[in-house]
């Protein structure tokens, strides 16, 4: 029997029948995540219901040397949950209970398959919410968020997943259940939790997450400002940040992105705008009102030709509708598109947007820009028609060139979508060989055999030297009498 067959037998013996999928047509439904041009059919799919079942699967994988890939909701945009054809896909969609909501501790404890928005839904009656809000929050899982260190429009003020997760329980690549962090901050020892968040499933599978809950703001104001160019809108962003204001969100869309949103959801953004800003202020009523006056003034100074203000939830939703639908809306003006995710220092915005426009002009490939302007996280949408020969390649080329621009300006190849399968090849452009080697020391500590989501993040795996395995007896230092009096 092959290792995979032995594994399948073992897993069948330990998990309920419905939790193990081997039927080829059902396996195929898991062949890709949100980045659908990467496809691979997994050899086996398991849907464990609890940590014990999950640990049994991972333990068997470790023992038999079979690779596995974790999957939450499969909305990832970098092919992080792309299955391994010779391996197991461990899906968390049956681990969806919100275990605890404790407003008095500002904490909630949830299973990894819980949908991001459901955490907020559970906390809202208590006056709290879960701050990281990826646009995919109605479908993506907390486990996926932890793996990607996901952000959202509001992370400008509130930070990313890593700033809102205080503890996890996880199954390490050798099948052991470990806890990192917890309710309290600053757990003694290395901040392994900090390394696990954003590690894209390569350091183990998270089975429970303790998150920080944030007090719902008393007051929220959303401003929509229309400008004739992205330069002017960018100047307004600089002015706002320069004035010491940290809005909850500042999002920008350029003319093409606005056109797409208009076609899709009729958001009625200011007519003829070359760019719009969506600026959200939140906090105590008194503070928000004080900031609001300044923001409006600064937008006017940067030649905003129209400013709309929304205070109630319905009006705010209307303003956000255009922005939130932007990715999907692009489908209205182009049959195919690539969503890019790159970061630049915010002050380089005018220069980089200019270069992107030039790239677009030279290549004839249209690029719509939608982005988190406050922190320089660009999401250029590179449009093409796959039916036209060579169009896909041309779009790929423009998309790659945009990443190069980000690196050239001291930025990053990904601000929130992750490296996954898609950008592993770009890592050496951003990091030196020694940098990548150092990161992989962490990989070697957690997963020396490279069974947990192999082939992702790093272009070439590091040889991990001797595989330490589980330490059964005393630590060598302890044996030598050098350490651990306690």
């Amino acid at each position, binding site marked *: 029997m092959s290792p995979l067959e032995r594994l399948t037998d073992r897993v069948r013996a330990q998990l309920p029948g419905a939790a193990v999928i081997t039927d080829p047509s059902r396996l195929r439904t898991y062949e890709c995540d949100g980045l659908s041009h990467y496809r691979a059919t997994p050899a086996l799919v398991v849907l464990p219901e609890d940590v014990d079942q999950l640990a049994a699967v991972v333990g068997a994988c470790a023992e038999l040397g079979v690779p596995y890939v974790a999957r939450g909701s499969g909305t990832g945009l970098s092919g992080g949950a792309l299955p391994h054809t010779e391996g197991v896909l461990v899906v968390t969609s049956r681990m969806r209970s919100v275990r605890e909501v404790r407003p008095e501790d500002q904490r909630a404890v949830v299973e990894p398959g819980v949908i991001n928005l459901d955490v907020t839904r559970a906390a809202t009656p208590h006056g709290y919410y879960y701050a990281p809000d990826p646009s995919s929050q109605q479908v993506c899982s907390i486990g996926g968020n932890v793996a990607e260190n996901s952000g959202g429009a509001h992370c400008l003020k509130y930070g990313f997943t890593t700033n809102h997760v205080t503890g996890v329980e996880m199954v390490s690549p050798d099948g052991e259940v470990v806890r990192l962090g917890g309710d309290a901050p600053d757990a003694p020892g290395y901040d392994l939790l900090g390394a696990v968040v954003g590690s894209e499933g390569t350091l183990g599978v998270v089975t429970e997450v303790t998150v920080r809950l944030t007090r719902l703001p008393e007051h929220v104001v959303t401003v929509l400002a229309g400008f004739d160019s992205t330069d002017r809108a960018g100047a307004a962003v600089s002015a706002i940040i320069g004035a010491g204001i940290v809005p909850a969100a500042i999002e920008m869309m350029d003319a093409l992105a606005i056109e797409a949103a208009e076609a899709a959801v009729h958001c009625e953004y200011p007519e003829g705008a070359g760019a719009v800003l969506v600026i959200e202020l939140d906090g105590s009523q008194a503070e928000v009102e004080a*900031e609001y006056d300044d923001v409006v003034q600064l937008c006017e100074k940067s030649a905003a030709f129209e400013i709309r203000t929304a205070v109630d939830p319905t009006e705010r939703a209307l303003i956000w509708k255009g922005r939130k639908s932007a990715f999907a809306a692009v489908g209205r003006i182009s049959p195919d598109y690539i969503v890019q995710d790159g970061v630049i220092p915010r002050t380089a915005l005018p220069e980089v947007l200019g270069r992107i426009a030039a790239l677009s002009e030279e290549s004839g490939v249209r690029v719509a820009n939608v982005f988190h302007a406050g922190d320089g996280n660009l999401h250029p949408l590179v449009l093409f028609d796959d039916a036209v020969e060579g169009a896909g390649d041309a779009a790929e080329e423009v998309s790659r060139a945009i990443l190069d621009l980000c690196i050239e300006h001291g930025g990053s190849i990904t*601000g929130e979508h992750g490296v996954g399968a898609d950008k592993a090849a770009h890592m050496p452009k951003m990091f030196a060989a020694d940098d990548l080697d150092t990161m992989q020391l962490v990989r070697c500590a957690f997963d020396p055999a490279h069974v947990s989501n192999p082939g992702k993040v790093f272009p070439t795996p590091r040889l991990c030297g001797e595989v330490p395995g589980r330490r059964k007896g005393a630590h060598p230092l302890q044996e030598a009498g050098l350490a651990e009096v306690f």
Partner: protein
Amino acid sequence: MGDAALTAEVDGVAVGEVATPCSTDEVAATLRGAAGGGRSVVVQGGGTKRTWAMPPRSADLLLDLSGMDRVVEHAAGDLIVTAQAGTPLAAVQEHVAAAGQRLLVDETIPGSTVGGVLATNASGPARLLAGTMRDLLIGVTMVRADGVVARAGGKVVKNVAGYDVGKLLVGSYGTLAVVTEATFRLHPVPPVRRWLTVPFGSATEAQRLVQDVLAAQVVPAALEVAVDGDARSVTLLLEGRGAGVDGRAQAAAGLLPGATSTEERPDGWGRYPWDPSATGDDRAVALKLTFRLSALADVLEAAADLAVRGSAGAGVLYASMSGDEPAAVAPVLTRLREVCGRHGGAVVVLDAPAAVKRTVDVWGPVPALDLMRRVKDEFDPDRRLAPGRFVGGI
């Protein structure tokens, strides 16, 4: 502190030699040399926390980074700053203040350097608003034990490319690699800062005040408690625009009846409840207590006979007691560990006289220790960086 008398030993352990590199390359050359000679290396910035945690098993080489004291880059428009590890935190603050900005971490001990604060993850009241170094650090240059120079993170706040190695270095007490440069996100200096202080009677009352503030809409920038004998108070810091702070102060006054208000930083704000300048046997037993927020009253009760100060709103308190009678420390520690442990947290002895460190478990129980050892084994397989200083003898 280039003072020879001070650098001759680290917490009672004799130093073989002192090196004072001025650049990352010099640190790398020094570490390559040390690797070749199999020598242990202990790093020091301002030396303000040199005795924290366990004494190293040996200190063949003391790497004094106080010569690496430059702000390398301040990109005001991007709200980031890069500084060499030996730069005093105060110097960074002064530099960025010119642009109306601040690195949102407190100088809990005067003379602290960027690298030292990072390596110990020291924090003060500002942690409620911005977290700690772990949350502010966005990029780092390090020299590994084998002398290899590596970088992680970058110069932009939003970046998920590769592992966040910087987080592993924060709070690692110099046992994984030597940090030579670090990049941080900055925050604007608010136009107005106002402190509201109110005395409290019982621990239960303190908890009620803290919970009321957290549940209200006053958006505290810091929420501290201090207990020193009979002087017991809760202090709320509000930051923002004048009108905003006024409005919130009004709301807060209802929650903290009888509070006094000031726009002058109160005495002792952001400082530990012990004298950090004391050395040797004069040192107090300095403790860090963590717990879930709703456990404040229980923790204050358990620490009733200690001097206490800290971020009640974040679940972190510092406490001190005399170390004159080492035998008296263990029972107190056991009691505090029982309470904090029950409430999801831990107690660490940050510093204490040698006699106390010998008799108590400085770090306490550490979950996932096996994984931590494996990380150490990868970064520093010969265990030459601050050997024995960290958890589990790492």
